[in-house]
């Protein structure tokens, strides 16, 4: 933050105009009218801006609206834009630096309103003898904080801010000193956004921005697994409203990842949980994974649509547009089905029962000797076994050039299991070494994932075409363009298959093997 910046809270018993009278004895300043001001703060649902120590807000002053992106500590905005629009996505911004810099930070996340702060603002310009502004004193009064998603309302105390001007920082420092020493105002370091969230009772970076639980290596394995499962359940619950509202595809994505991880734990750590619990919840979570799948697939299709278009020659790209429209209709249909599923008693019962089980006491005696062992031992053994299977299955594919697609599919699932285990138990192992292994694994997974996606997408293209044909109205040009897309996907699938051996060997190289052995054996 710039030297000379200062913020002071005005205690309720202090009159702002008395403070200004003191300042006037030492500085010349020009008073300004009091103007109503509205700040609407935004962030993604998972606090991507907050986590990079920045915030975006739209400021309405009279008729003017600006969008600002600034450091969380209320330092001067690094990006500003005069615009009445509130962008939903980074890519909604007009082309330029704001858009370029925000896109990599937000990705596909939507900007959601966090809090509205309404207040009256007076800006006093401190002048030198040339009547040049050399510092600003800003008075913010009558602030009311509201939140568009609830009726919550709270008020904030008056604030004084000293804003320096480049090259004249000493004047701002003098002014700050005066307010602190002579007027006796207390410094207030909390940024406005945090005051506002606090007044609303929100914790920033909380909720979905939460971290996986940190496990004590000596903890009983079944206790540890319950901790992990509870954290996954929280992720499911937190994302549910976003999934229903369908404002950002990431809600559903995170919801599904948590479901898949839960299933993975149930499947891979069987001995640790009571058999009757497994028997009941495995099919239930499978059902939940199933009902959320079609919407996600269509989301992905739509997210990647421009990429797909770039895979066909420019002159036929337009011809794919009817496919996009078709996908949008399907997506809405599937989304409605998904919401219906979430409204069923089955879903309610699943979540409630599962929470009751996880919140209840760990079963005594433990369902198996393994359940009573320290989590570190159990996790390591599990990871090691899965890793060995991964190597074995991978080598089998390398040694057989005619290995069927099914074998790669198997390996893909195996890698996924390994990845989930590594990530779930990440807090038990040295972060740097683990990160390296996960990175190596991810490279291999990307290859297998692409191979699978290309295969599945060729199939779905066929299905879509059949359905579109059935519905009529689609021009033959669209089908031709879809055919080109399919051909391109087939070609890319072959290329990914060819790249597999190299990717796998890199993952299975002696250095990584040594590392796996050192950590998990």
């Amino acid at each position, binding site marked *: 933050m710039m030297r000379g910046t200062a913020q002071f809270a005005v205690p309720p018993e202090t009159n702002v105009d008395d403070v200004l009278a003191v300042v006037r004895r030492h500085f010349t300043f020009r008073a300004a009218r009091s103007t109503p001001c509205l700040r609407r703060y935004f962030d993604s649902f998972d606090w991507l801006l907050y986590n990079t120590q920045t915030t975006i807000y739209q400021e309405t002053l009279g008729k003017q609206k600006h969008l600002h992106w600034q450091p969380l500590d209320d330092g001067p905005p690094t990006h500003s*834009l005069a615009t009445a629009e509130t962008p939903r996505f980074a890519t909604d911004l007009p082309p330029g630096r704001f858009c370029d810099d925000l896109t990599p930070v937000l990705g596909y996340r939507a900007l959601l309103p966090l809090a509205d702060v309404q207040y009256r603002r007076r800006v006093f310009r401190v002048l030198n003898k040339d009547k040049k502004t050399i510092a600003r004193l800003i008075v913010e009064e009558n602030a009311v904080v509201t939140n568009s998603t609830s009726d919550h309302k709270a008020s904030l105390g008056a604030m004084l801010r000293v804003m320096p001007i*480049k090259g004249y920082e000493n004047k701002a420092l003098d002014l700050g000193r005066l307010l602190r020493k002579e007027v006796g105002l207390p410094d207030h370091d909390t940024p406005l956004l945090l005051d506002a969230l606090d007044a609303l009772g929100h914790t920033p970076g909380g909720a979905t921005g939460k971290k996986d639980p940190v496990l004590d290596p000596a903890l009983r394995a079944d206790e540890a697994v319950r901790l992990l499962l509870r954290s996954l359940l929280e992720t499911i619950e937190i994302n549910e409203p976003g999934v229903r509202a369908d404002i950002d595809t990431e809600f559903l994505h995170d919801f599904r990842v948590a479901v898949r991880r839960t299933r993975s734990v149930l499947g891979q750590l069987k001995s640790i949980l009571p058999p009757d619990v497994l028997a009941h919840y495995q099919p239930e979570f499978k059902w939940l994974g199933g009902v959320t799948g079609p919407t996600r697939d269509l989301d992905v299709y739509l997210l990647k649509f421009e990429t797909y278009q770039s895979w066909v020659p420019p002159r036929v790209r337009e011809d794919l547009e009817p496919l996009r429209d078709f996908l949008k209709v399907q997506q809405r249909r599937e989304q409605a089905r998904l919401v219906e599923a979430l409204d069923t008693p089955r879903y309610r019962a699943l979540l409630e029962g599962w929470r009751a089980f996880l919140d209840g006491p760990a079963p005594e005696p433990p369902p198996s000797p393994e359940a009573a062992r320290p989590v570190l031992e159990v996790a390591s053994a599990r990871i090691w076994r899965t890793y060995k299977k991964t190597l074995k299955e991978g080598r089998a594919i390398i040694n057989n050039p005619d290995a069927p697609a099914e074998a790669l599919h198997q390996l893909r699932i195996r890698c996924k299991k390994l990845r989930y285990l590594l990530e779930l138990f990440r807090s038990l192992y040295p972060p740097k070494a683990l990160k390296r292994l996960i990175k190596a694994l991810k490279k291999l997974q990307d290859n297998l994932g692409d191979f699978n996606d290309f295969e599945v997408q060729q199939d779905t293209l066929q299905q879509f075409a059949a359905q579109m044909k059935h519905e009529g109205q689609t021009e033959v040009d669209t089908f031709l363009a879809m055919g080109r897309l399919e051909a391109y996907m087939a070609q890319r699938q072959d290329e990914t298959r060819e790249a597999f051996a190299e990717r796998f060997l890199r993952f299975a190289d002696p250095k990584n093997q040594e590392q796996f052995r050192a950590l998990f054996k």
Partner: protein
Amino acid sequence: MNTIAVYNLKGGVGKTSAAINLAYLSARDGHRTLLWDLDPQGAATFYCRIKPKVKGGAQKIVQHKRNLDPAIRGTDFDNLDLLPADFSYRTFDSTLDATKKPVRHLASLLKPLKKEYDHLIFDCPDGLATLSESVFFAADLLLIPVIPTTLSLLTFDQVKKHLKKKTKRPPLTLPFFSMVDRRKRLHKEICAEYANGKDGFLKTTVPFASAVERMGVERAPLPSYDRRSTATRAYQALWEEVKEKM
């Protein structure tokens, strides 16, 4: 960062007025803008109510790219900063000549500013020597105010020839008519002749208006105190046209 130079070989054609008003409009758009007053007369600096003083002068600035930032001053307007004029700028040519690569040197000094500003606008003094060459080398756009008279056009021709023959990497040249007095037959005729974009002339013309002269009394950019005058609207249109060319 986009670098825009406002330049003409001829003096008193409205360079400074254009430079400061465009810089103000750029800042008002939300772009972080730096105006560098290269003219030792310091007219732009005066309009900003800032002391025409750079510690150590041109000599110090040229020494190291780190030395620019401490010289920069915030103006009265958000997003608009000024690098003030200094008396030492009157020998800027020879100061640059003493460096290893006189023409490229200025551009290399600007590097650290690239992250800090979206737009850099030079208000140039008249003349055609090392400083102007350095500005041509550093600038992406060269805005040239031209008064619509035969003589002014002749000077403009000279600048054009020079850019073509002598300048290694000439910026995109954007001439526009300035101080246009519609009551004068010659002004009207010349503007009409160039209205279709001949010689790269921009569509916008800045009229002769007393509101512009009042900047000397107000000591502020025209659009900040006069929202309605024809000249204000002309500078706004000019800025829109310049943005399109960036």
